[in-house]
């Protein structure tokens, strides 16, 4: 009865506190688990009794890596609840803000967290020694992403300018124009990054994922669109909870999200595969030149997809910056009313769903938030299982490295995940 | 309406804000946490200080604090300052090794009224580190001994270990040109001197109140009681001079920090007659 365990107590280069445990018996895989040590923070409980206007600032605190995503899902859900629709320059500014977050969040993952896996380094620090130009370029790019968020909303982490109905203050034309030079340079750097990503060695590993992402009639999805899949799903956010369910899996107290009883994947691979036709020409061409087809099922290649998305975000940001005219009003008047409403937006790591119930005074009665990582956890574990089945004979150290790389392919944000998932796996 | 700009004035003022660079010649420990540093200046040479004046000393990269001169004011070759390591800057100053650079601005402030003391008995009353700003007075009094009457030093510290400049005090005491009484709050087994706070010594000195000038330096609360005791001994409040301490930043009376009533302690002090200070010292948190 040979029993083997691969245990990673603390995963490096992922956001948040998580581990990995793989159990094998008699040369066969028994279980592969992503373990989450993040303490629960009870956001859905503490949102109750708060005013609707507080939701963007409070939910931003779920995650310091993608606060804009939380703010965006919250404002759209609240605006749906209050029956307002925001268009024009304010909508464009929100998109620009989201582009900023995509750039910094993606580049952080690409260069500092994920690249070391491909380049044989242990850390971003080591990367700084061995691949200084890459790190330097990554830092420059990330800075531009942060700069966009800071100019539009005060600061890169937990920005303060987003409100239901618009912004507290819209930037002047000059302030936005000053982003033009750095974002233009960033677009060049992103193009370089795409080319660099094409040179990395990718294992031949494909999975038949169920991809889920937003899809918009014209845009590569950020703030809006219908929720679609490559298996025929096509719903509005309001219908999310009737199709997706969080269920308790037997090996842990974690809640995994299932679509029609099966695991699915959100995030760059899904977004790209379902929306590559919506990319801007420059991003589409870069993807083609890098050899990335319209569909990508190889999770290792997610780094390429992220590079394409960074390029797209720079390009899209530049378009918005160039066309920007300050709106006459930065916000619209809001009347609280009793309502229940939902929204989903595309966080860097994938679909982020919010649902709120408000009373007549605009006080939150119930909240439900489903983060991308909780949706992807099942797929990540399935990736591990799939890989391990073919490679159980590898030395333990190498297995461990591979497993960690597999997890990092999906840029799991455990900080986010933990607020809605379980926290501790029973150890044997 | 524009003001005329005086270039030389601007340069001068600029210079007042920028420290000169001196070097640590020597340093030694005087008491737990108290260090005396000797500083040499090369360019443009040591700027002389009067007894009672202070310099703003910079530990580069840490910060700047006011420290009174504790050396001989007639020594034109070096500046001597005694520092108690209580904050980040004073700790850094106390730790500077030989040869290390140190920033100096100054001297600033009023000195002890040495001229007024001529022909008088002089009573120096020091508490704790307060002896350091009074040591320049002793140097000067002894150098000009015939000009003064009786010279007395009453000195209190927490314990014998905290008595500053002990060897020097003993040497001075042997000269018999100086009455020195040292008292401590807490005596150890080896201590044969006075025990009790320094104010208890005043009544025992047989002062000639009309012809005595008192220079008091120490913690403010000690000075308040000392001044009261000196008055009780018959000294007029105009004959009692105190050295005040306040938060000082600019040292030239413009930053506002060191105000006590209408006085800028950095510029109008630190030495002020009790006659002026008495009303202010009576008000809490002024």
């Amino acid at each position, binding site marked *: 009865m040979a029993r083997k365990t691969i245990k990673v107590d603390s995963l490096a280069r992922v956001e948040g506190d998580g581990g990995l445990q793989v159990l094998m018996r008699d040369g066969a895989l028994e279980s592969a688990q992503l373990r989450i040590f993040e303490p629960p923070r009870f956001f859905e409980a503490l949102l109750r009794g708060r005013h609707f206007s507080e939701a963007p600032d409070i939910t931003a605190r779920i995650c310091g890596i993608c606060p804009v995503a939380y703010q965006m899902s919250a404002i759209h859900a609240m605006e749906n609840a209050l029956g307002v629709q925001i268009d024009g320059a304010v909508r464009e500014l929100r998109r620009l803000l989201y582009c900023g977050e995509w750039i910094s969040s993606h580049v952080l993952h690409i260069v500092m967290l994920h690249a070391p896996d491909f380049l044989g380094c242990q850390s971003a620090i080591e990367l700084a020694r061995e691949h200084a130009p890459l790190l330097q370029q990554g830092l420059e790019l990330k800075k531009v992403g942060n700069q966009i968020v800071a100019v539009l909303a005060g600061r890169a982490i937990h920005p303060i300018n987003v409100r239901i109905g618009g912004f507290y*203050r819209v930037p002047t034309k000059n302030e936005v124009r000053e982003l033009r030079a750095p974002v233009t340079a960033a677009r060049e750097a992103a193009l370089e990054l795409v080319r660099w990503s094409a040179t990395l060695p990718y294992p031949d590993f494909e999975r038949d994922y169920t991809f889920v992402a937003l899809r918009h009639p014209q845009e590569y999805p950020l703030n809006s669109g219908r929720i679609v899949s490559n298996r025929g799903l096509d719903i509005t956010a309001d219908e999310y909870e009737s199709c997706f369910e969080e269920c308790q899996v037997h090996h842990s107290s974690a809640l995994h999200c299932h679509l029609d009883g099966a695991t699915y994947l959100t995030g760059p691979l899904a977004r790209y595969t379902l929306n590559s036709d919506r990319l801007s020409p420059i991003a589409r061409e870069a993807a083609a030149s890098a050899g990335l087809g319209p569909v990508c099922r190889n999770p290792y290649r997610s780094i390429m997809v992220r590079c394409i998305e960074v390029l797209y975000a720079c390009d899209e940001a530049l378009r918005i910056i160039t066309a920007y005219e300050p709106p006459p009003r930065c916000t619209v008047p809001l009347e609280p009313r009793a309502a229940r409403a939902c929204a989903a937006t595309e966080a860097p790591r994938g679909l982020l769903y919010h649902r709120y119930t408000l009373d007549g005074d605009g006080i939150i009665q119930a909240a439900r938030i489903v983060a991308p990582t909780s949706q992807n956890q099942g797929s990540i574990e399935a990736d591990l299982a799939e890989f391990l089945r073919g490679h159980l004979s590898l030395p333990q150290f190498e297995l461990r490295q591979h497993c960690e790389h597999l997890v990092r392919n999906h840029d799991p944000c455990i900080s986010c995940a933990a607020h809605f998932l379980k926290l501790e796996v029973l150890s044997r | *309406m*524009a*003001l*005329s*700009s*005086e270039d030389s*004035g*601007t*340069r*001068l*003022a*600029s*210079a*007042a*804000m*920028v*420290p000169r*660079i001196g070097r640590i010649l020597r340093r030694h420990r005087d008491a737990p946490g108290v260090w005396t540093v000797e500083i040499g200046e090369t360019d443009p040479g040591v700027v002389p200080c009067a007894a009672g004046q202070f310099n703003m000393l*910079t530990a*580069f*990269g*840490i*910060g*700047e604090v006011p420290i009174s001169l504790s050396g001989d004011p007639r020594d034109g070759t070096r500046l001597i300052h005694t520092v108690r390591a*209580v*904050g980040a800057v004073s700790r850094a100053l106390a730790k500077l090794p030989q*040869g*290390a*650079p140190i*920033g100096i601005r100054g001297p600033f402030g009023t000195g002890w009224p040495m001229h007024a003391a001529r022909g008088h008995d002089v009573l120096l009353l020091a508490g704790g580190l307060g002896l350091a700003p009074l040591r320049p007075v002793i140097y000067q009094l002894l150098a000009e001994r015939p000009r003064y009457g009786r010279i007395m030093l009453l000195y209190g510290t927490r314990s014998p270990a905290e008595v500053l400049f002990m060897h020097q005090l003993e040497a001075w005491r042997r000269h018999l040109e100086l009455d020195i009484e040292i008292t401590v709050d807490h005596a150890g087994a080896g201590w044969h001197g006075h025990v009790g706070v320094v104010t208890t010594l005043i009544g025992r000195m047989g002062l000639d109140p009309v012809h005595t000038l008192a220079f008091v330096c120490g913690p403010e609360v000690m000075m308040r009681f000392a001044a009261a005791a000196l008055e009780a001994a018959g000294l007029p409040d105009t004959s009692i001079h105190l050295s005040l*301490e*306040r*938060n000082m*930043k*600019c040292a*030239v*009376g*413009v*930053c*506002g*920090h060191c*105000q*006590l*009533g*209408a*006085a*800028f302690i950095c*510029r*109008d002090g630190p030495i002020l*007659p009790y006659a*002026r*200070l*008495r*009303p*202010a010292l009576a*008000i*809490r*948190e*002024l």
Partner: protein
Amino acid sequence: MQAYPGLYPVAPPQSAGPEPLMTSALAPPQVLTHAGFDALLAELKRSGHRLLGPIVRDDVVVYDDIESTADLPRGWTDVQDGGHYRLQRRGDDALFGYAVSAQSWKPFLHPPGQRLWSARMRGDAVQIQPEPPPSERMAFVGARACELHAIALMDRALLGTGPGDPYYRARRAQVFIIAVNCSVAGGTCFCDSMHAGPQVTAGFDLALTELSDQSPPVFLVHSGTTAGSAVLAAVPSAPANAAQIAAEQTILAHTRASMGRKISSTNLHDLLLGNLQHPSWTEVGERCLACGNCTMVCPTCMCTSVADVSDLSGERISRSRRWDSCYTSEFSYLHGGSVRHSTAARYRQWLTHKLATWHDQYGSSGCVGCGRCITWCPVGIDLTEQVRAIAAPPAG
């Protein structure tokens, strides 16, 4: 009640308000149209001045860079009270129809942050690079009488004694001032009580009175300096007629009559310093937020602090000066604690310095009656009320 006479290093108090400034021999006033005023601004710009004047930003009138009269707060006025400020339409096109801006000229003459020097440390070698004083020419457009008095007070404090402040001196040396007589008084104004307004008397290059009810609206212009006359001569203007000159006095009389606040200025010095233990200090200390807003907006509060910083390597160091406030605990910090520990003591320090010990230090009051400390106090604490409370015998 004995004020403590011992603490006055300078001369005893002379006058209640800031000393009236010398009125320069004035040439007869000219009249300038809006177009002429624009030409005047253009002329100043041409001669290398950075134009600074009132604009509306974020619902308040503030001083900032301007290009022309188009940037000025045309048609706006302000409603001010303790802790309250709102802009309102006037119903005409007056450019200076508001009472007093949110912040004074202080930030331009004495900026919130100023590096003094930087240095490089290499082992035991230190190289200090003093920060050179700036050499910018600025034109202040729309300075009020109270503000000119405030600038004169800063001149006295920052340049009057000792070596002075080279940065202030350099900025101050290059300022061209276009003053404006106040045509309205704000709800918190009391310059009249402090003898600091509303009429501009000195300290300007040009002084305007806006005659906004004339058609077309014009400005009456006085030259205060040869520099002022020269600029005025470069643009089209006409001599003022008697009616226009009379209108100016009518406007000022009206402004004087509509001051929102007043303060009894008879011997505030002795009143305050004789009542340092008055119970009303404790009462105001309970309401005071110790937030420092009053000191930040006061046109004569100029206290600063310095701090040294080093970079991660410890090789680059610098010393900078920044605005400080007597409401912070760091302000009077000494070996582990603040001398002024309570908020009441900090408030008392501020008020008594401003209205009393300033006399001892600089020979006049430190208050010009602009009312900003009242308007911009978030909880509306009013120094004129505090003075009244001190003057009243303590209850019980």
